């Protein structure tokens, strides 16, 4: 039994500001061992229009068997519409959806081997927990004994054995979610859809259930596509994440990919927080490049070339707060630093975030892990320097 999620730290809401590189790569490394290369679902150039408004715009995706895939985006990004098309509640205007090689884009929801867990859970209020779980099986006309057996198995899976006779309104939020999950898994769907799976839970329960749901999904080995607006949730639960915006898929990749190598400025800002400096490329070679940034008041050096076309010199340099360093002495060299004053300090327990106003008037966020108790740290209005390693920054475009 792989249980990699113990590495998440429930006490902080800024998990990705922790120096998390190692943890995350090990996490995804373990999970991907059960993901197979085989394609389960293919979404081919799907578009959906509502009264001329384009909700989903020419989206293509490939889902591998066994993986947990997250669609991450803000409201109105088209992620829910895409999910509803996969479930069959909306029909794509253009394009195809293939499940195991067969086109299902016109198949009604009740004939698809896909089940969904709804954001509101949608438990039938007039049925008991056991009847809810049995509902889908009864539609398939399974023999009574088999239904009973399968319901018991599902209840055990979600640790709800004692609640079979309860009605949904007699359950707590977390319990309802377990029942909803059991109901959507009961038919052994080839694909499970989760619509904002933690949306109806409070924060504390959310972190707890994220781990539990992933554990259950892994035990069952079902392929899963989830929709969420919560980047933390997507990165905790998913093997791969697709960032959606305005009906487009902006980037697809592992949580490490989208966090450490965002495709553009929008992804960098949407996933975690980032310090951005506008600049212009003045030198671009195979092993390094130099960017002139008036915002920093100094040049920025990066340890690799970026091979830009000659007419697109304007770029953004992004540095994550946890990779931005703070010191009281002036850093050596002519690159990648600025002088400033500490304007504000947010103490968040596990780490502190410093807001440093540079001499150029730019506000830079620096996060420091609080590894020792009450150590000597810069205080309010102290004169400090921010700087970063030339391997830490990423060059982005709009």
């Amino acid at each position, binding site marked *: 039994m792989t249980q990699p999620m113990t590495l998440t730290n429930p006490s902080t809401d800024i998990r990705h500001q922790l120096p998390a590189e190692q943890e995350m790569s090990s996490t995804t490394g373990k999970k991907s061992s059960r993901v197979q290369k085989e394609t389960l679902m293919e979404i081919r150039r799907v578009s959906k229009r509502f009264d001329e408004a384009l909700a989903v715009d020419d989206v293509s995706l490939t889902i591998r068997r066994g993986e947990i895939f997250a669609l991450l985006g803000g409201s109105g990004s088209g992620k829910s519409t895409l999910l509803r098309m996969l479930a069959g509640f909306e029909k794509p205007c253009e394009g195809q959806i293939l499940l195991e090689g067969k*086109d*299902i884009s016109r*198949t*009604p929801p009740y*004939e*698809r081997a896909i089940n969904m867990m709804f954001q509101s859970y949608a438990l039938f209020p007039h049925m008991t927990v056991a009847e809810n779980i049995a509902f889908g099986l009864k539609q398939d006309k399974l023999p009574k004994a088999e239904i009973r057996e399968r319901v018991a198995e599902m209840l055990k899976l979600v640790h709800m054995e004692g609640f079979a006779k309860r009605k949904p309104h007699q359950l707590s939020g977390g319990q309802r979610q377990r029942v909803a999950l059991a109901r959507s898994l009961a038919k052994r769907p080839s694909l499970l859809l989760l619509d904002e799976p933690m949306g109806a839970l409070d924060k504390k329960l959310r972190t707890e259930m994220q781990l539990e749901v992933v554990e259950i999904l892994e035990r069952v080995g079902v392929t899963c596509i989830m929709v969420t607006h919560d980047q933390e949730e997507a990165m905790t639960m998913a093997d791969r994440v697709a960032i959606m915006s305005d009906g487009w898929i902006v980037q697809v990749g592992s949580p490490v990919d989208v966090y450490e190598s965002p495709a553009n400025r929008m992804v960098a800002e949407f996933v975690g927080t980032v310090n951005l400096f506008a600049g212009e490329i003045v030198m671009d070679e195979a092993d390094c490049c130099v960017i002139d940034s008036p915002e920093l008041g100094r040049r920025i050096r990066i340890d690799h070339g970026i091979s830009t076309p000659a007419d697109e010199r304007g770029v953004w340099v992004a540095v994550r707060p946890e990779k931005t360093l703070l010191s009281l002495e002036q850093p050596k060299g002519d690159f990648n630093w600025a002088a400033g004053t500490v304007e504000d300090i947010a103490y968040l327990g596990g780490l502190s975030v410093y807001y440093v106003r540079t001499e150029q008037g730019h506000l830079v966020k620096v996060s420091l892990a609080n590894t020792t108790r009450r150590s000597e740290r810069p205080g309010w209005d102290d004169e400090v320097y921010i700087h970063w390693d030339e391997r830490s920054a990423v060059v982005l475009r709009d």
Partner: protein
Amino acid sequence: MSAPISQRLQRWFRPRRGWVIAVPLLWLTLFFLLPFGIVLKISLSEAAIAIPPYSAIVNVGAETVSLVVSFSNYLFLMSDSLYVAAYWGSLKIAFVATLACLLIGYPMAYAMARAPAHWQLVLLLLVMLPSWTSFLIRVYAWMGILSNNGLINNTLLWLGLIDSPIRMMNTNFAVILGIVYAYLPFMILPLYANLTRLDGSLLEAASDLGSRSFNTFLKVTLPLSKGGIIAGSMLVFIPAVGEYVIPELLGGPNTVMIGKVLWEEFFNNRDWPVASALAMVMLALLLIPIALFHRYQSRELKE
């Protein structure tokens, strides 16, 4: 799950959706919309001694089809002061009764909406219960109370406050009282529904910003309950204009209301074309209030 089956299913399902829509639509068209067309048609024909008692508009002759449309019924309505007075009297009485319902019903609905949660259902049932009994009997109750030897007059005579009974039965006052009594629940219900939805924090915000309670009522509560006021008023005003039972039982010879006139034209004089014309003119007069009510109702349904 192959494509042909699903396509077949879809083809089979599409027309069914149409059938589900068609059933209520056809029923209402046949038994609600179409009858108005027939009323319009008959209002344009002439009265005749026949069964049914009106002339045909379309005459199919040997070679020709002639259309005889007559506006004489409408001209007749205009020329006879009785009908004009009846329309005017109906509108006046309905208006006064609606206003009275609003003035009594609004504070009642307000108190209900502000009552403790476990009292609200009881109060709502108490207000609605009379309307579930019997309209006719509730009007009848006032006959025993208002008549010359009724409860009120007897009590007043016994107390020595009056020497001879006050005439209350068979007056416009009795009709208005009867309408207010019968229709009050229909005024309170939409007002209450509207006022319970009013966010209490709005009132707190207003008083926090220094507004006194009466000012808050005028500037916040009243404008926000506009929808309820319109719905309640229309639910009282429109049926009251066409009311027949109340003027018949409580009204007197001076009470001319259009519902009663129409009834008498139809049942006593057996003049179907004039009765139809009366109904069409009444409908035309009520078109704006009905449209107002419909707009409120469909907005309510959309929310």
